Every structure is written in C-alpha cells, then in structure tokens.
C-alpha cells in the first residue's frame, strides 16, 4: 500500500501533518531508515527535508540551534568557519544524515571516547507531538536543569514519540592537530594494547579496533599531541596524519555504515566484556557460515559488527545468538541483509524497564500512530 509523502516547511505545517496524518513514519535523510524494527505500513511519510537551516548561532556562546532536518555535514561546514564543530563523528554524517535523524537513532562515533554520545551535546529540543502540540525542553545555554530533559527521552526514540523539529546543540572548538597511530592486531592483541593505552598517562580522543587494526587517535595542540604519541609507544605502529589519517577513519566509517547484503549490528557492552564478545561472534559466525568484521570503540565498549557472506539465515543466526549471549547489553540492528527480517527479531530480550517504555509510549502516542513496529515486539506490537 502506498503512503502519502509530506514535506512540511515550518512547525505549524509539521504540526498539522502530525495531527492528521494517521499512521506516520518520520524520515530524515534516509540514512537510518533501515535501523531498528521494520515499520509496518503507514499512511504518511513525514520528510524532515523541508525543516532545515540554522536558527541561531553565536560562536562565543558555544551554542547553535538548527532545524532538525539539517544535515550534520552542512552544519559542521558552517561551524568550521568559526573554528568550531559538533563533537560527534557518527559514520552516517558523511552520507548526509540529519541532526534529528542522528538523535532519534542515538547514533554516535568513535570520538564518543571523550565527548560521549550525541545526546550529551544536545541542550534543548522542540518536538511536535502526535496531538500536533509543539513542546520545548531544555534551552539555549550550556548549563540548564530547569524541567525534564525531553531531548534525552527522544534520543533513541526512532520517531515513535513525536517529531524532533528543532535541536539546540553545544559546540566545541576544533582542535589544531590530529594524529592517529595504527597497528595491525587481532581481537586479543587489540584488547591487550587498548588496556596498555588506558593505563598510560595519555588522553586519546578515539580508541578503535577497526577491521583488524587498532587505531589510537590524539587531538589537541601540536605541543600536546606529540609527547603523547611518543609516550604511547605502540610497537609496530604506523603514524597516520593528513590524508592517510583521513583515509583510515573514512574506511572505518564506511565499514560501520555497511553496504548492500551486509548485516550491521551495534552492541554496547561493558568494555571488559570485549574478549567474550569477539569470541562469541567468531564462534557464531563460523557456526552459521558468515564472516564478522568489527569496528569496536574499545574504551567505551561500543561495537559495530558487520556480517558479510553467508545467507540471511546465517546472519539471523548470529543476531539471535548475540541477543541471547549478551542479553544485558544494548543491541540495535542497523542494516540487514534481505530476508533477515523474517528470521530474527530486530530487538532482543526486552530491557528491565520495558514496562516503563510502554507507559511512556502510551502517554505520548496513545493511538500508536508514530513509527508503528519500530520497537516490535517490545512495545507490544508486531
């Protein structure tokens, strides 16, 4: 069944669509449409592509307010002119992901190591609810504890609570110097080396095991970065800077984004559980006849697992094995190979607070019109 496409250009028009659009799928740039549960048929696809542009930017206050359909890449370009950036480096940014889409999918990148997930640099939001009402939370200042933080609630909500229409973000100064040390390592070696880095007096901004290489990034002033590179002293490491560094992280981002035929799964597990995770995934992949490639942010314990080769059943088998083996972890299905959907649920065992998730969903979208089945079976649909 086909649905109506709608592209509101202001808040009032968006409110009208939200109120009258029936079952609604909210779509940003489309880079995360495949993530989470497969939405069931909707009446309206609300595109945020009409809600773009910077609303207010004062570099000296280190805050910027944007319409949520703005691509983060465009925003970063504008901030760069003032020597600033939004401190997040999710792989989808290069593919044109929107600010609202990145927040709604709780995406993040390797620099989460120092800057935290995207939600940590969000200061305020304007949302449009299913009722068509327009609500704000937070504000335009870096420090603010007035009222509940709806931005956090909407982070990771996949369009099921309302439309993220405007977002206020904190900016950070861009750093002058960046260098990355790269050293080939298997999972065990990567874990050991990451532990050594952790225990040295250094402050990397990213620590990733990507496609069989450990990448340790340092950023700051030249005076600050150089001594840290010396101090880390990773045997056999290659020093990347300029174009070679850019290429290494671009390759990592491409891996994380995945491509057709691949299944991509993100797992957040206690950092010390990485060896168990790597072992389990290798075992599952071998058992089911697929190949698993990792991009692991070892310092924070967030891993993107890319399954290649094998058929849908193989990918589904690995996913189910992960759900069962790492039940206490946050596991989100990103991309999946054709056919996986029928064989494995997008979400694993529900978290302890699933009852509360349902209450919140019920309170914000009593008729269940927004993003139906995105969280099936947790929210009782499907």
């Amino acid at each position, binding site marked *: 069944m086909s649905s109506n496409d709608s592209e509101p250009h202001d808040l009032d028009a968006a409110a009208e669509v939200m109120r009258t659009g029936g079952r609604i799928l909210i779509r940003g740039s489309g880079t995360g449409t495949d993530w989470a549960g497969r939405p069931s048929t909707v009446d309206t696809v609300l595109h945020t592509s009409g809600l773009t542009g910077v609303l207010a930017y004062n570099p000296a206050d280190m805050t910027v307010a944007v319409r949520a359909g703005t691509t983060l890449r465009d925003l970063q370009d504008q901030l760069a002119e003032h020597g600033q950036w939004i401190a997040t480096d999710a792989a989808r940014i290069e593919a044109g992901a929107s600010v609202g889409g990145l927040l709604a999918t709780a995406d993040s990148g390797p620099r989460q190591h120092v800057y935290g997930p995207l939600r940590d640099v969000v200061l305020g939001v304007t949302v449009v609810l299913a009722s068509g009402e327009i609500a704000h939370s937070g504000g335009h200042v870096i420090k603010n504890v007035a*009222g509940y933080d709806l931005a956090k609630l909407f982070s990771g909500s996949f369009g099921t609570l309302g439309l993220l229409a405007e977002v206020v973000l904190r900016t950070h100064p861009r750093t002058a110097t960046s260098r990355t040390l790269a050293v080939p390592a298997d999972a065990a070696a990567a874990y050991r080396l990451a532990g050594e880095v952790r225990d040295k007096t250094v402050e990397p901004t990213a620590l990733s095991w990507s496609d069989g290489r450990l990448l340790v990034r340092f950023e700051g002033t030249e005076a600050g970065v150089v001594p840290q590179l010396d101090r880390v002293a990773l045997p056999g490491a290659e020093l990347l800077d300029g174009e070679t560094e850019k290429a290494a992280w671009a390759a990592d981002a491409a891996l994380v984004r995945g491509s057709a035929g691949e299944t991509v799964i993100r797992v*957040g597990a206690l950092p010390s559980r990485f060896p168990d995770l790597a072992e389990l995934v290798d075992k599952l992949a071998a058992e089911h006849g697929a190949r698993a490639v990792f991009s692991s942010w070892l310092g924070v314990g967030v891993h993107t697992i890319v399954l290649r080769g094998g058929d849908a059943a193989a990918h589904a088998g690995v996913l189910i094995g992960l759900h069962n083996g790492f039940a206490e*972890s946050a596991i989100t299905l990103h991309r999946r190979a054709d056919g996986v959907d029928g064989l494995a649920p997008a979400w694993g065992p529900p978290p302890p607070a699933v009852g509360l998730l349902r*209450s919140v969903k019920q309170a914000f979208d009593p008729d269940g019109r927004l993003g139906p089945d995105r969280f099936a079976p947790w929210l009782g649909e499907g």
Partner: protein
Amino acid sequence: MGDALQADLIGALGAASVLSNPTQLRTYECDGLTGYKVTPRLVALPSSAEQVAAAVAACAKHNVPFVARGAGSGLSGGALPVADGVVISLQRLRRILDIDPVNRRAIVEPGVTNLAVSHAAAPHDLYYAPDPSSQQVCTIGGNIAENSGGAHCLKYGFTTHHVYALEVVLADGTRTWLGGPTGEQAGYDLRGAFLGSEGTLGITTKAVIRLLRKPESVRTLLADFPSISAAGSVVTDIIGSGIVPAAIEMMDRLAIEAAEAAVHAGYTLDTPAALLIELDGPEAECQSLFTEVERICREHGTTKIRIAADADERAGMWRGRKAAFAAVGRISPNYFVQDGVVPRTRLAEALDRIAEMGRDAGIRVANVFHAGDGNLHPLVLYSEAAGEHDRAEQLSKQIAELCVEFGGSLSGEHGIGTDKACSMPTMFSGTDLATMATLRSAFDPAGLANPGKVLPTPRLCGEKPGPYQPHPLEAAGVIERL
C-alpha cells in the same frame, strides 16, 4: 488510617527506622533552602534498596506522597516534605559497592557522598568529575535528582554525562534499571529523562557512574581585574581562542570580601573582580595554553596574577571560592542564593541589570559564578530583623526571571524544586509544561513522588500559573499554603 501506613512502614523497616516523634520529624522540615519549612507526617530510614521499595510500596498502598532526601543540602527546596507525606531518607544506603578500574566505573548507593567516590577511586588514580561546592556532604542520589554540576562542568559536563545506569524505585514500589552498561542505548533514554527530575519520577537506589583518570597536569591562577567587564572580556577571549578551561570562576568585590573574611584564601580585598581559572590535561598542552591564558589576562589589564605553586595553594584558592556561599553569612545576617544562567556573552549586561535592580530595591547583591558557562550565583543579602525578607525574596525571584528574559535558564544546577516552580511559566509554555506532566504521569500516574516540585501547580502558585498570589480562601485563613 495514619496508623495503618505507619504500621506497614514499621513492618517493612522495623520500628527504629520509622520516625514519628514531632521533635525528630522537625529535623527533616527543610533542606538547604531554609525559608520553606514543612513537618512531614513520618520519616522512613531504609537501609537497603529492598527497604526503599517496601517503603514506597507502603506509601502507594495508602496513596500517601513521599519525598526522597539525601543530605538535605539542596538549595531549591527539592527535598521539602509534604505535610501529609513521608520523607524517605537515603542516608543509610551509603555503601560503595564496587570500584572497577578496568571499566572505570563505580557502583554506589545513593547516600554515598560525592567526595567519598573520588576518595575511594583515588588509589587507582581515578576520580568522579562532577564537583558541586557541597561535595563533602551532598550525596550521589541527590546529585542524580538535581543533575548537579559544579565548577568544572564547562569541560567535563554534568551528572547526566557521568551516569551509565540507575537502579530506581518507581512510585508504585517497582524496582527496575534504567540505562545500560555503556552510553549505547536500546530504546528511549529513560536514564536521561529520570536524571535531574528532582525526585518526581522515583528514587535512585544504585548508580553506575563513570570514573575518569586524573589529568596529568593541573594549572590554576587567580587574577584581579579593575572591572567586571574586563574580567568578562578575558573569559570571552579565552573561549574565542579555542581553549576549554576546566573552570573559570568569577567573584565580585562583595563575594571576595566575604570569602576572604571566612577562609583567608589570599584574595585581594579591594579588587572589583577576580577570576579563578584552571586548566588541566596533558602537561605540555596545559603549559602552552596556560601561557596563553596569562597573556589574555595581561592584555585586559589584570592588576595582579597569582599562580598556584602547588596543590596546597590551589586548594586554598578553591577553598575561598567553594566557601563563598556560606561565607556571605559573615557580611549579612541572611541571604538568598539564585542560580540562573544567561548566555555567556550577555554576562556583563546581566550583572549590570542585577546591580541596578539591587540598588532600586535597596538590597546588596554579591556575585560569584561560573563565568565559562554563564551560570550566575547572585547572593541576595538582607536582614530578617530589619524586615527586608519580602523585598529580598522578590528581588531574588526577579533575578531568576531576568535570566530567562536574557535567553537563559532559571537554574543551572540547583534545580527548580519548590523555590522556582512558580517561575517555570516564564521559561516554558503551557504546552511545554503539560508535556513534562505527561512524562511524569507515565512514570507516576498517582503523582505520589515528590509532588509540588518542578512543575507549577495551582495549589502552589495560585490558579493562574505565574507569580504566586494568595488564594482568596488562603487569604481568608480557610486553607493554608503548603
């Protein structure tokens, strides 16, 4: 009826852990905001998460509101009791359950003090970053309820940035976990929604919090300036040059006078403004940026720079700053402290307006604040004995609302609580507040968790949201204000 609740609480906690003696109850009548006082019906002193859940379940069974309380050091009346309700003190849940240096996490109970976490982590060269001025006494549970900041949050963020997961007791007595093992989420960030909800969504019974490695190098200086605006320009230039200091604190002449009288930190008594600036990070980087900061201070006509030679001298500089609130007692019999935030670039303008408002009201205002993020802490000095209370309270409220007018916030870290609930409509629309109430009802449909805080209610603020006005029945003495 009251007996039935008391009996259930005694059944769950034991008679020694349920206070009902009026003298004992009065100990809990207020928090750090002493202007509001309400004696609770009962006080429960659970010793475990199970007992917290049992106490809350008893309240739910009898449909009686409850108010969680940590150290009672909050400054917005967030732990103010409800007259017919139960105060649930978390003071007996003070175990540090785990310090995990590999994963850089601690698992703590809510009654653990903020500073105790850093002390426990110190052998591993780790610490807990949020550092409210009250960190020696305030508890992690209270910090979570308020989303507390501190002097170093410009660089390191607030409590919400340092909490992975929370075990909470919901208002029906259910115990559950919010958040997960990392910052990665599956589903809504209920952890983040709960954080900073000021006890209105439930009670924290365990927290998994982030520990950071102590920075390799810390450099601190204290610089005097001939004017607030000169000091403000220094802050602007530091931020403009791309430096994110660990802290930039500003104090004005009155605040310096008070702090110096209290702790003799070596501040200059007659300087109109002083900045306490701290950088931390890798040694070499810290040194080069510190030189740049010194240069900027001189460029704006600093009259004196003192650089902390060692950790003791640094601690001394901070002692003056952290003691400033209490120290104000030395120069004024009574005071209110406000906590509004303005966009940093409008600091000087806001301070001028505050000075003007103080002059008009005939009330002195001392200023000590986090200059890097625009979080003001105006101290409104007055004398109860001289009958200045109402004027001072009015001024204090006007200052908070001025911050909203400047595009900022009513509160940067102290919370809304009872104190500022009636000012919320100056910052948020009716729809905004109704949406927050929707979230509250999803967590607590019966409205038993800390009612009357954060969101304005007709009972608290009068029928019309906005400035408090006595209800006609109240004025006639028929009903009383909580």
